[in-house]
């Protein structure tokens, strides 16, 4: 019984990916088109291209900038979002302004920030990532705080929970599902900005080196870069999901009960 369940699970998990990879392998096998090298060539180029030194000099700075920028956005978004969400006046005051900033496509921040700080160091890149990630977290926090069950907040008030306790035990947990929604959107924007910020200004970093491969027509190497970026995206999404499931376990359980499953 368990063996068949495992077999089934493995089949569903790996079936399609294996089929697709095989198709790619076969279809590209004798490829003479320089833009589409065979999968074999790409896979062979991978370990040669992404040696430990290269990973340390390109990937680590990229991810570090992403991590710093994203964390700043999370802190700023939650603090700002809670403040705006709790005060109707502040919300009305800031709503159109926030709508505008949210609507500006984050990549156009790069030229603006480049005006201020130039674009060679870490600072400009981190600011770009942080500003791009800020809006989805901020706006979702506002929505989450605003959407709190009034009975819940009233009960907390009538039990005379202090302001801080209400914030810590009622407001923040209550809005955390929305905060996570915002953070998830922000993470994918952050990865995009991590790459884009490196396309400007001669620098090290994943984005920079992939463009370098492309410009020097090192096509298999370029492909390994694309695959590496893909893997990073997948890995970050997976880590995010683990954190989210752990922190929102209560919420998911509650939803399941509500839906009668």
């Amino acid at each position, binding site marked *: 019984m368990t063996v068949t369940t495992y077999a089934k699970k493995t089949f*569903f*998990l*790996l*079936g*399609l*990916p294996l089929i*697709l990879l095989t198709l790619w392998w076969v279809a590209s096998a004798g490829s003479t088109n320089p*833009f589409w090298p065979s999968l074999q060539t790409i896979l062979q180029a991978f370990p040669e291209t992404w040696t430990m030194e290269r990973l340390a000099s390109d990937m680590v700075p990229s991810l570090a900038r992403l991590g710093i920028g994203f964390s700043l956005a999370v802190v700023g978004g939650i603090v700002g979002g809670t403040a705006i969400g709790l005060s109707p*006046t502040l919300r*009305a*005051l*800031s*709503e*159109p*302004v926030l*709508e*505008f*900033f*949210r*609507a*500006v*496509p*984050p*990549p*156009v921040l*790069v*030229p*603006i920030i*480049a*005006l*201020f700080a130039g674009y060679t160091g870490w600072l400009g890149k981190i600011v770009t990532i942080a500003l791009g990630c800020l809006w989805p977290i901020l706006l979702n926090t506002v929505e989450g705080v605003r959407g709190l069950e009034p009975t819940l907040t009233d009960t907390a008030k009538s039990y005379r929970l202090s302001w801080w306790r209400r914030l810590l035990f009622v407001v923040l947990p209550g809005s955390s599902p929305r905060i996570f929604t915002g953070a998830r959107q922000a993470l*994918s*924007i952050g*990865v*995009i900005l991590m*790459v*884009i910020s490196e*396309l400007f200004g001669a620098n090290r970093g994943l*984005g920079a080196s*992939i*463009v370098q*491969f*492309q410009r020097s027509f090192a*096509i298999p190497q*370029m*492909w390994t*870069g*694309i695959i590496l*970026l*893909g893997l990073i*995206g*997948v890995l*970050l*999404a997976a880590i995010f999901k683990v954190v989210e499931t752990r922190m929102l376990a209560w919420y998911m359980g509650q939803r399941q009960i509500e*839906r*009668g*499953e």
Partner: protein
Amino acid sequence: MSSASATLESPATSGPKPRTRSRRPRRSRGVWLGIVGVLIVLVGAETLSRTGIVNPDFLPPVTEMYATLFQMLGEGWFWESLWLTLRGWAVGLGAAMVLGVLAGFVIGSIPFLRAFTNSTIEFLRPIPSVALIPLVVLLWGTQPQSAFVLVVYAAFWQVLVQVLYGVADVDPVARDTARSYQFGPLRIARSVIYPTALPYIMTAFRLAAAVALILEITAELVIGVPGLGREIGIAQSSAAVPETYALVIVVGLIGVAVNLMARFAEKKMLWWHPSMRSEHS
């Protein structure tokens, strides 16, 4: 919607009618406060720049940005770039919506396909579409196809995943109720699945519209596909600071318009849905 869907949806807890009177003054107060907020930001930025607290070479006075903006409105290249950007956005978004909804309905309604494709979708979805930039540059250079591929790739996953959620979110109780009333599969699809999935499709549209705009502008800015994004890049590299800001403002306003349009479409399509009706509270 037939009466069938009305019985299956939970009734709205509060009709909007009795609230309108008390809501109106609050709403207009909100609008006024919003205008005040915008003015504070504009005046604040103008002051920062005029007093030199922020170097006006980096942040020109807001009035100057808008003067440049109005000047641009009289120039042909501006309108052409605007048209190219909007066209690229709309075409890419349309393609992604069609593909995403079709794929979502097919995959979502066949349990085997859903389980079989799940791992692949979860893997492909988080791949940042900007990773494809070097490839599309090689294939199409600065032609609009480059932007099209990036836009469709990015927006497609947003749509697909939402539609999958939507098809999966059909309330089992509602479906069983419909079954026990001997509804045929077509009628279930129309009165149970469609009303459940539609809000998700509209959400997908809203998300995809924003993502499509981001990728269209990105492609123009980074690759040099003709459009407003490219003009921003050109303005910045030729140190035309007010133009850079003016174009960024235009792009932001397009973004606002896109969001408003998506929300308007949502309201129009979902006026009957509880989530819309309870928004009045």
